[in-house]
């Protein structure tokens, strides 16, 4: 019994349970057909959610009020800059990756400068910077869709025995970030700040430096996502970041990370990301109209948050 309770106590487990249930509900409708393909697709799309989710999770773990709303704009900017730099040339792949990450670095530094110098809450800082970043992306990209270099497109869509290569890479990245979170001074400082910023500062943690690194990390992961996603989806587009505003936050919260900060949960990101995608494809499979699909997505997300949030409140 204690073991059962210990398992049930793990908040991230629920996200996997929910993802599995959604998968079952979908293939039950199709009569068991396409279950494997659906899983492959889910892992592919979940990968992108997880990349931005990791950054958002570190930011949210810093404590109340910390959230990065500039992720969608950063994805769009990094995607369009990288595709323009690459100019469909395979030889430019690395350089375009560097360009994308440089965009992320710039946005992260800008975000943090606003937070520090203007002393405004991060929500407002990242929101106002996202206005500027998105405008830059629009003016820079001019709405053109430049194709990715073939090698990047191949890499992002490659599969090994039905498992997307990208998912394997990102699983590795997530594992590394898990070690960073729990085993390094930086990661533990993030958690400590989230639990009690004053105590962390008194204990000698350089709070501002850690916050700076975290916002830069989040923006750079968003940039990486923009780079990979434009490779995957055949080019950058101005609306490519849109869905990530909800996704980046929902993945973190559904994944069992405390919104109050100080308690991060990395495995849950995967469950939540799979769940988010599977809900979408389930509703598509049921052939609902666009209106019903939006309605159901919203209601399901709220329902899961109510259930997951309640779990935390009790403890």
């Amino acid at each position, binding site marked *: 019994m204690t073991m059962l309770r210990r398992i049930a106590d793990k908040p991230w487990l629920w996200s996997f349970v929910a993802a599995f249930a959604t998968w079952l509900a979908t293939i039950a409708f199709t009569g068991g057909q396409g279950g494997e393909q659906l899983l492959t697709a889910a892992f592919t799309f979940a990968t992108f959610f997880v990349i931005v989710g990791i950054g958002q999770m570190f930011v949210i773990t810093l404590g109340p009020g910390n959230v990065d709303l500039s992720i969608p704009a950063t994805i769009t900017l990094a995607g369009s800059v990288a595709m323009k730099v690459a100019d469909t040339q395979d030889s430019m792949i690395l350089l375009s990756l560097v360009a994308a990450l440089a965009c992320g670095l710039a946005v992260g530094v800008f975000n943090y400068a606003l937070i520090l110098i*203007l002393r405004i809450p991060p929500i407002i800082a990242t929101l106002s910077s996202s206005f500027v970043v998105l405008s830059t992306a*629009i003016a820079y990209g001019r709405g053109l869709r430049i194709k990715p270099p073939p090698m990047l497109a191949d890499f992002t869509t490659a599969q090994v025995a039905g498992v997307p290569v990208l998912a394997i890479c990102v699983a590795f990245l997530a594992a590394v970030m898990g070690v960073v979170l729990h085993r390094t001074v930086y990661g533990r400082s993030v958690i400590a700040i989230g639990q009690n910023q004053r105590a962390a500062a008194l204990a000698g943690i350089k709070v501002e430096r850690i916050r700076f690194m975290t916002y830069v990390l989040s923006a750079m992961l968003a940039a990486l996502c923009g780079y990979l996603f434009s490779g995957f989806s055949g080019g950058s587009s101005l609306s490519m970041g849109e869905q990530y505003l909800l996704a980046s936050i929902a993945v973190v*919260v559904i994944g069992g990370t405390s919104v109050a900060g100080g308690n991060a949960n990395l495995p849950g990101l995967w469950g939540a990301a799979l769940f988010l995608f599977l809900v979408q494809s389930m509703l598509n499979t049921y052939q609902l109209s666009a209106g019903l699909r939006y*309605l*159901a997505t919203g*209601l399901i*997300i709220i329902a899961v948050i109510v259930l997951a949030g309640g779990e935390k409140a009790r403890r």
Partner: protein
Amino acid sequence: MTAVSPARFLRAILPALSLAILLIAVYHLNPRAISPLGFQLMFNLAIPIALATIAQMCVITVNDLDLSIGAYVGFVVCIAATWLQEIPVLGLLALIGGILVYMLLGALIHLRKLPSIVVTLGMSFVWLGLAILVLPTPGGQSPGWLAALMKYKPPPIPFLGGLVIPFPILAAVVIAAVAHVGLMNTSYGSILRGSGGNPKAIERAGWSLLKTKVTMFGLAGFFGMLAGLALIGLTTSAQANVAERYTLLSIAGVILGGGSFVGGRVSPVGAVIGAMTLTLAASFLAFMRIPPDWQIGAQGAILIIVLALRAIIDRLEKPI
């Protein structure tokens, strides 16, 4: 009352000052814009934005954030353009239902200690879905009385030399006055603000935090509804995502108007002025021939500049 410190005074007039500077800039670029007709045209869209900003301010007062207000305004627009037109009773019920949903959300967020950002992000999908269900393709028709109201031209004021106050300005004054008196000058208004500033103290004093949260979310739903009605009165035909940008505009408006993000420190008058500043910024950019690509960015830049000014003022106030 002791003398108001210069920093505090500066902070209080900063929203009005930004609006005035922007007006002067517009006058410089196009003198004819500063006329009753020019004001009517430039500030028409400020009415729904100001109402949405007041709605957002209600939520921010209790330390939450509403990321669904744009979608909700779109929902109201679609209801007003269809049901309210064809079967008024049903339309009215749907609008009241919207406010009830807002109150329910307030209760849910309070009781389950949920993050308002995520819940309202989820709600934005719900409102958008409902709006599309009501009106799958752009169209519908604005109820005649709404269009007539929004086109209302106030009579000239005889003792001011026949001055005509443009309707948007009149509306902005009324909205600001109602919100100001309700929130700043009533006893329950200070309880409502207090529940954002120091929830524990309010609870110890015997007030229900659940009730304040539900009240504020209900008010947000109410003002959001007014915003939708004003918008459909101006645009004549409806579309589900017509007010998508209102979410960001309303947050920016509250902050521009001097509201703090936490702690119940808000300013209804400032919020209305903030909304007008953002609306005017669009006209200003058009006069400057800045391409529409940069419009969002320029609004972000204005937000950052005003926040920077406020940071400077704050620093003046607290010398080290």
